[in-house]
């Protein structure tokens, strides 16, 4: 296959994946609102098909450039979003059996892909010598895998915070009537109707999964990602030593990956700290998510450093 043909296949597959995800998002939100199983099935099928096209796009890109397609921001975004999709399918849908968060995850994926296509696209090309290292491949690979997992954890954390706030409001509404000590998970949604309590005509369990489930899922995802991020920083330091003669130099990219690491370490601590688990820990994870985005986008695009020639 010629490089040009591979490059064209890569962009075409990108388009296919994008459209598939777009329709999958609509199906997922339809499922969220109306709970038709067929809508969920459709969204999963489209997500799978999109992921396949996505994979083709990544591989074809690698063939076109004649190297592993992890050389610039466009390629990082492509790989990252694919991994978010795979992690979502594997961890959230398959392993945890949570069926109602796909729309949000895929919306994030679509946003990532759109930013990549609109602002970050560059043609496939070989790498400059400093980037041409085995350690770099390992480093970038693990950073992308852990970023994808942390991003998924971030999305779940946001959903958790939303749901948790909803549950607290509901508890506050119910408390005067039901009294404390009621397991709200078992009480159907109630309505205050002219001072008398009536069960709502359609008892709804709320749109999102219970806050506790989201919290647990977010924590598992982040705890899974954290050692991989640690490994990524270590291999990055090894590469930096080979390339620049120092393993750590507080270069902006290094600094921000450290900051993100410290914040998620803070999150793991918070979950073990009395009075900090739950909402406060989630807020720390959210700050970590923002820090991840800064590490990923802002540092490469706006803050200069030795890493900036990686863009």
């Amino acid at each position, binding site marked *: 296959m010629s490089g040009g043909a591979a490059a064209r296949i890569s962009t075409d597959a990108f388009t296919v994946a994008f459209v598939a995800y777009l329709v999958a998002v609509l199906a997922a939100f339809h499922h969220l609102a109306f709970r038709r199983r067929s809508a969920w099935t459709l969204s999963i099928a489209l997500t799978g098909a999109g992921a396949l096209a996505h994979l083709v796009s990544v591989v074809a890109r690698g063939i076109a450039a004649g190297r592993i397609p992890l050389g610039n921001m466009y390629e990082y975004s492509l790989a990252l979003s694919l991994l978010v999709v795979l992690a979502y399918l594997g961890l959230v849908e398959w392993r945890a059996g949570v069926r109602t968060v796909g729309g949000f995850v895929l919306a994030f994926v679509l946003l990532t892909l759109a930013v990549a296509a609109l602002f970050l696209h560059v043609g496939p090309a070989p790498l400059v010598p400093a980037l041409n290292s085995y350690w770099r491949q390992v480093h970038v690979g693990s950073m992308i895998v852990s970023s994808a997992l942390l991003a998924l954890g971030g999305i779940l954390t946001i959903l958790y915070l939303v749901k948790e706030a909803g549950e607290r409001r509901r508890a506050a509404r119910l408390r005067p009537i039901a009294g404390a000590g009621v397991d709200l998970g078992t009480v159907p949604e109630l309505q205050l109707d002219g001072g008398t309590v009536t069960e709502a005509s359609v008892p709804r369990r709320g749109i999102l999964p219970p806050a506790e489930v989201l919290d647990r899922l977010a924590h598992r995802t982040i705890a899974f990602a954290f050692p991989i991020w640690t490994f990524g920083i270590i291999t990055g330091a090894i590469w930096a030593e080979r390339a620049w003669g120092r393993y750590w130099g507080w270069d902006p990219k290094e600094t921000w990956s450290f900051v993100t690491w410290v*914040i998620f370490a803070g999150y793991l601590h918070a979950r073990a700290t009395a009075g900090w688990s739950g909402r406060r820990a989630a807020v720390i994870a959210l700050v970590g998510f923002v820090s991840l985005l800064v590490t990923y986008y802002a540092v490469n695009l706006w803050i200069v450093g030795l890493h900036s020639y990686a863009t």
Partner: protein
Amino acid sequence: MADARTHTVTPRWWAASVGRSVAFVWRSLRSMRTALVLLLLVGLGAVAGSLVPQVGVADARIAATFRDHPLRARIFDQLGLFDVYGSWWFTLLYTLLLVSLVACIVPRTRAFVRNALAKPAPARDLGAMRHYAEVVVPVPPERAISGARRALRRRLFRVRAPGDGRALAADKGLAREGGSLLFHWAILLLLAGVAWGKGTGFSGQAVIVEGETWTEAHASYDGQIREGRYFGEHHSGVQVRVDDFEASYRMTGQPRDFVTRATLFDQDGRLLDRVEIRVNHPAEAEGVRFYQFGYGWAPVIRVEREGEAIFDGPVVCEQRDVPDGVSPLQVPWRCVVKLASLRPQVGIAFELWPDSRGLLSLLETGQVMPMIVAYAPVMTWEAYEGDLRAELVQSASTLDTTAMRRIGSGVLGAGETADLGRGITVSFLELRRYTVLTVARDRGMRIVLLAAILMLIGLLPALSSTRRKVWVSAEPDGAGAVLKVGGFALQRGSRFEEEFARLVRDLERAAAGVGP
């Protein structure tokens, strides 16, 4: 304090108060909340360091801040914001974090060791456990228990059989706390390695022209060196003879590879090694590493007066102030020859075009083109006489002409000679390259790497394993026995539910002597 009574108790009151304060600080440092806050503050400090230009990373931007916003620059400077990672407050923060870390993990380690040495304790009331099951097995209690014991061992539980052989206490998941402790101790080891390596090491830059030999010693760095606080001047004396430097580029002007081929000798001139130093592939000799950093051009120039050489050798040319967005390959190189021994002194400034087509293209079409190889190189020169003002500190590649007068200029191709008048001639003999190597020694690197690996090894079980406890007892029931199983998990209780069910099934089969 006029009261005599108060006087007599003061020392003890004071001591007790200090004792209480120390105890309070120690307790605070041990608390998880303090650790959490300190951790987040260190993160915040690091953010400040990435947003404000830092010494050693972005010196030019610091200078610009001082020029354009003097007040802001002074405030930043006072707060240590230009050198966050060396500032007193960042040091204080991470020192507190370290003290806190030690305060946390010392008692945790003690408790862990105690816990690991002690066997699992027997339980009184199995029925009150979060998970509980009863099964009937067709064998006597003692056989049931020994079967259960095998099954638990197979599942890597630690098992203890207290008393009469009719009960078991088992637990699993010590790796969680053990891993966590290993991780936290390894952080300390890592920082020790960093401090030791940086403190006893150095890092500098060597500029070596092809064909020349450079000696690894303090004076050879021309000030381009940072030495650790405890370095103590122990340079290796290794000699580096650069045999050849090669830079290859793609058609697009994108660099492909930079290689310095060098021969290394020890300080007594004995051959150590022949090496190829390229980006990502440093060379090492006597604990010192050599990294490819950059390169440039060095024309060999001879200046004669009345036929007698007064300067002869390669001159290192540099590129300064390359505008943003312009490839350095398109920009000519500058260098200077200073003849301080002449009266009046003479200085010659050169502008080197390693590929003369670059100069021609600029003159004819106004277009710049990348100069990748040496191709009929030319230099333009301008000669001055007067006072070089050599007493002022100045860069070797700039000429301070404020006290000088121009005496001539021209163009010089390789192999040509120009006449400056006053009996002085300057010849451009040949063009060579020079290589720039980062030279560094960091003895802590192995420790840091080891610590990082230990951190990772500790982290995996710390985050993935869970602590579980299980108790089994057997009571006679007709010809067989009733097996009672109770247990709980300290983490991820919901997942333990399934594991517990499987475990009970396993125990039942093992106790009955069926299956594995």
